[in-house]
């Protein structure tokens, strides 16, 4: 990655004093992740340019930065893009200038100069506008040149990378301070773990300008953003080649578009109420996700056992942590069990429950999986009551961005209208000896129904089918 700083304030050679780097030398500095080179492509009284060329040692990158997607470890943009690595390099190589110290020319430290900072490549995933929103409010003239992804494939469009020039009459220490804080914010990825000392660093470097910056909240949030939580490495490897279809969570319906109502909570209470009405004491939560419903159900002492099943081991581990299973008394602990399972496989462990809750799960199944799902749950396990919730696709027009027939969640394989859901439910009742009542959850829109639909199935004691 490359940063150049050009001064046009005569005598421009003052820049060398402020940076504490002699213009006639090519200097190399060791950095925690590689090395930095400082040299002056131009050094005259009219104009002096200092260059900071930072190189990342790829091995150290993997060691220090790894843990994400493995592909990222070896082929990635980190060596080229000015990011938090550049911030660290600035602090290490131009530390005195950043802190505003100069033994020889302390008179210059607070002097505004005509400076241009040029960053060979920065990343902005929110376009040129985002760059302007960060730098223009603090007085820079911004020039950003976008780079296409690949000249041979015009249809791929632009890359998220820009060559960025920032011009302003500012003291050098301010320019460096701005870069120090805003470079990590630009691409929102920090190469080191964020801890509390980061807050102090941010406040120190942002003194005098960050408080009044219109994008202050965004800057603070992104600067302090932690790395994403541990990814299931095995899954990563397996899915890497196939692209990213369906990376979303299973079950539990994390995202319901832009709904202003807390639909999750409405859904939860509707389901809990139905289970209570059914008088169920042994309950199976199919697709339990992080165990929110389990937590709710455990509050009811008439519930003797809740079994949560999910296909994702990671989700089950989160559920165990969330429910604090390890800290429960034995009596409480015996009321809960968690198991990995899949609705497309028959499973003896699913027998013997009064009720099963299948909350925002079926829409994550491929159409072919509906038949085994039906056999596994309604045919073999046969709980007395089964509660199924799923989005009502008719309601999607109420979500602005879903008017085009797309789904509420990337991983949804289908979303049903009320008629489609009803048809499916009735067929199940016919084949397996259940009766169903259909309900809506959430505020109803005229002619569209509620955002979520719920089917409450009850076994009617006969089996129409000769199994």
């Amino acid at each position, binding site marked *: 990655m*490359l940063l*150049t700083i050009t001064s046009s304030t005569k005598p421009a050679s003052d820049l060398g004093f402020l940076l504490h780097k002699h213009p006639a030398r*090519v200097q190399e500095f060791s950095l925690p992740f590689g090395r930095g080179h400082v040299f*002056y*492509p131009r*050094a005259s009284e009219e104009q002096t*340019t200092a*260059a900071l*060329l930072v190189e990342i040692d*790829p091995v150290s990158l993997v060691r220090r930065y790894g843990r994400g997607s*493995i592909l990222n470890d070896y*082929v990635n*943009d980190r*060596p*080229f*893009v000015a990011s938090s690595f550049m911030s660290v390099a600035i602090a290490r190589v131009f530390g005195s200038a950043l802190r505003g110290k100069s033994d020889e020319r302390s008179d210059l430290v607070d002097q505004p100069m005509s400076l241009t900072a040029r960053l*060979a*490549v920065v*990343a902005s995933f929110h376009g040129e506008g985002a760059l302007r929103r960060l730098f223009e409010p603090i007085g820079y003239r911004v020039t950003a040149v976008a*780079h296409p*992804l*690949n000249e041979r*494939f015009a*249809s*791929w469009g632009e*890359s998220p*990378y820009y*060559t960025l020039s920032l011009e302003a009459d500012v003291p050098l220490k301010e320019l460096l301070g701005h870069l120090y804080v805003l470079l990590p914010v630009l691409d929102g990825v920090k190469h080191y773990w964020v801890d509390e000392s980061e807050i102090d660093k941010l406040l120190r470097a942002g003194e005098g300008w960050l408080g009044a910056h219109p994008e202050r909240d965004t800057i603070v949030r992104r600067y302090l953003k932690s790395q994403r939580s541990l990814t*299931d490495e*095995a*899954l990563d*490897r*397996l899915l*890497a*080649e*196939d*692209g*990213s*279809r369906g990376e979303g969570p299973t079950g539990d319906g994390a995202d319901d578009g832009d709904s202003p109502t807390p639909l999750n909570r409405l859904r939860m209470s509707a389901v809990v109420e139905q289970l209570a009405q059914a008088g169920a004491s042994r309950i199976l939560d199919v697709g339990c996700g992080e165990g929110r419903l389990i937590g709710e159900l455990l509050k009811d002492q008439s519930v003797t056992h809740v079994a949560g099943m999910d*296909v994702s*081991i990671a989700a089950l581990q989160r559920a165990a942590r969330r429910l604090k299973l390890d800290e429960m008394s034995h009596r409480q602990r015996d009321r809960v069990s968690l198991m*990995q*399972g*899949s*609705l*497309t*496989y028959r*499973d*003896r462990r699913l027998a013997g429950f009064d009720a099963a809750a299948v909350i925002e799960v079926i829409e*994550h199944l491929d*159409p*072919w999986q509906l038949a085994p799902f039906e*056999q*596994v749950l309604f045919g*073999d396990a046969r709980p007395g009551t089964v509660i199924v919730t799923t989005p009502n696709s008719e309601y999607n027009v109420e979500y602005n961005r879903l008017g085009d027939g797309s789904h509420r969640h990337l*991983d949804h394989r289908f979303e049903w209208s009320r008629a489609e859901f009803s048809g499916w439910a009735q067929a199940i009742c016919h084949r397996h000896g259940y009766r169903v009542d259909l309900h809506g959850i959430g505020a109803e829109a005229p002619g569209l129904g509620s955002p979520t639909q719920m089917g409450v199935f009850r076994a009617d004691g006969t*089996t129409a*089918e*000769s*199994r």
Partner: protein
Amino acid sequence: MTTIEIPELCVVALVGASGSGKSTFAADHFLPTEVLSSDFFRGLVADDENDLAATGDAFDALYTVAGKRLRRGLLTVVDATNVQKPDRRHIVQLARDSDCLAVAIVLDLSEQLCVERNKSRPDRQIPRRAIARQVSNLRQSLRHLRKEGFRYVFTLSSPEEVAAVNLVRQRMWVDRRDDAGPFDIIGDVHGCFNELVALLELLGYSVDRSTLAVTAPDGRKAVFLGDLVDRGPETPNVVRLVKGMVEAGTALCVAGNHENKLVRKLSGRDVQMTHGLPETMAQLALEPDGFADEVLGFLDGLLSHYVFDDGKLVVSHAGLPEAYHGRASGRVRNFALFGETTGETDEFGLPVRYDWASDYRGDAMVVYGHTTVPEAEWVNRTICLDTGCVFGGRLTALRYPEQEIVSVEAAHVYYEPIRPLGNVRDRSDVLDIADVTGKRFVDTSLGGRVTIPEENAAAALEVMSRFAADPHWIIYLPPTMSPAETSSLNGLLEHPAEAFDYYATRGVEKVVCEAKHMGSRAIIVVTRDEATATDRFRAGDGATGAVLTRTGRPFFETPDTTEEVLGEIRTAVDRAGLWDELGTNWLCLDAELMPWNAKAGELVTRHYAPVGAAARAMLAEANAVLAEAATHLDVRDLIERYRRRATAADGFVGAYSNYCWDVSSRSDLRLAPFQLLAGEGRTYFDRDHGWHMATLARLAHDHGLLVATPYLEIDPRDESTRAEAIEWWTSLTADGGEGMVVKPSNPITKDRKGRLVQPGIKCRGSEYLRIIYGIDYDTPETLSSLRGRDLRRKRAMARREFVLGVEALERFVGGDPLYRVHEAVFGVLAIESEPVDPRL
């Protein structure tokens, strides 16, 4: 000498007071591991064999261990005093729970002797009073032991008698493992004498109509599945014939529920005169005196089931779950005769039967009757032969080991069925979670037993459940492929020479070099017509095949695209005349689908392209700045390095761009099949790669979807042909080509030690490797650190995955049930989730 005969599998209770010599007796006649002593378990749970307070826990542990042993089919001896009834009740219960017999061996020695022996024990002293009580308890128990549930009771009353015991283990009655047939297994006859004679004659037996004597064809034996009697017109003659055959040693017969009921009736019990029993009684009334007693004697002696041919074949009337094979208990007999019902009744008022066959996962073939079916069909290695002869259906036999079905039509409807003959719904095509989770061992014909660790299975379950296609189509998943050993040539990480050396040193005389297409792996299953899809793959919803990724996901977003692509492949196979030439109506192909961005579009535009763009922009700026500095500073080293990096970045962009082109419609896709994996009844792993290449080249068509793969066959030991192949590789890779794959000419090849060699080794081009190892990977420092890469794990994975993939296909073409095929492909996916350097 006293001979004590006990069943091979049973639980033996030693009964005797302290000092009666139980442990000595046990040590003389049983393996140390067969004997579970209460003292030993007291020691285990309390560190003190004499701690009576630990007795409860000690027995809990003892019974748990005993239960595990018995489930695993191991004889177990309980060495405790067992003089009290409640203790013995536990042992009888243990035997019942494990479906085996309980045997009591009583050491009924004098109190005096016990006391004396006890005195000489160094470790502990039991009070004389306690011994007296034990002896008295024992004496009181003696008469009741049989009633308590011990099938065999042996009482030894003197030290001499104890010393003279000769203990013999008897094979179980149902155990006929040493009899491998060949058999003709015959379904429910129900008094249909004429049809039985016709069937026997069709099977090659000759029947003397006057004496009913039957002569079996050479070495064959008939096996009757029970329900010989009731409903039909000639029950007495059927019994007469079968009894004669059994006595002559040309047949075996197991009991059915109708025999059971008839036996009860003939023994004078009060049974309901329904389901064809009145007809039988009326027919018997016309027979000579004493015939009914003969019938009773014969039928009463019939066993519940037989285990034949080293455990590979099990017959019973109503089927038998694996846990009951070779076992003896009321529960086993009950299941064998009556099956199991769910407690529900259907619309005809008949009990709903538990569908044990769908849950069956055993290796043994189970042949049974009892449930009337319109066709004898395999479900998970079980087959029901009751095709309802008496109801006007057919009388059916299965030839073993030929697995050939032979049947004769009924001449009449002899009895009206209560429930119309219809297929019982088969649930066997829904997989069971127990088939895939936990630590698993998959037996393969190619590579022995493959172990799948539990955590890998868990990861695979998630991928399989969330993303995979309908399991009916996933009959194969491809193995990973290892690169060649690291090259020692300057600036190169991989080179074909190492691949040639690998095979040459393992005695391979011919290899094929195939150009490696850079696209995405696609496994294709294509059927000739929809009927084949439905019949052979049990697919619904109109699919005529599948295009899968290497992890079993549908390659295309929509079924329509899949069908269009399959349509083109089908047309190509039609045109080449391969269906008839290969004698199959479906094919499974291994292929590469291009361009790369067709499947990996997001990976390209969100990962590789941005990195390339950032690299080029940054390096261009750096070089400009350095050029300016060079006018007055010495930056030669930096300039040299940054020029090289810029060239590398261009190479990187050039390499990945080569594998991409815009796909606006299906006609922009290209498919390069490189191996014919399987068709009906066989895999093609026994054909050399030259055949695969030549056959598949016939599918290629100008401007069509299918393209041929360029290849070269060489002798890896021969310098001149090696040089030719290396030159070809060099030209393939010069401008970013991915490289080539070197395979032994025979897909399945073993080295001189009999070890499977790698099914393929990839030799990737040096420009292409920038995509894998990083843009700058070929700097001398990076290269030298990469040279330490270790291929062993990758190669072990490749071998295991290959073995499992072949196994999956072999199982599928061999007609194995879905769960068996799924087990193997699931294994491939599970092993693939193992952590290994993804760059290899």
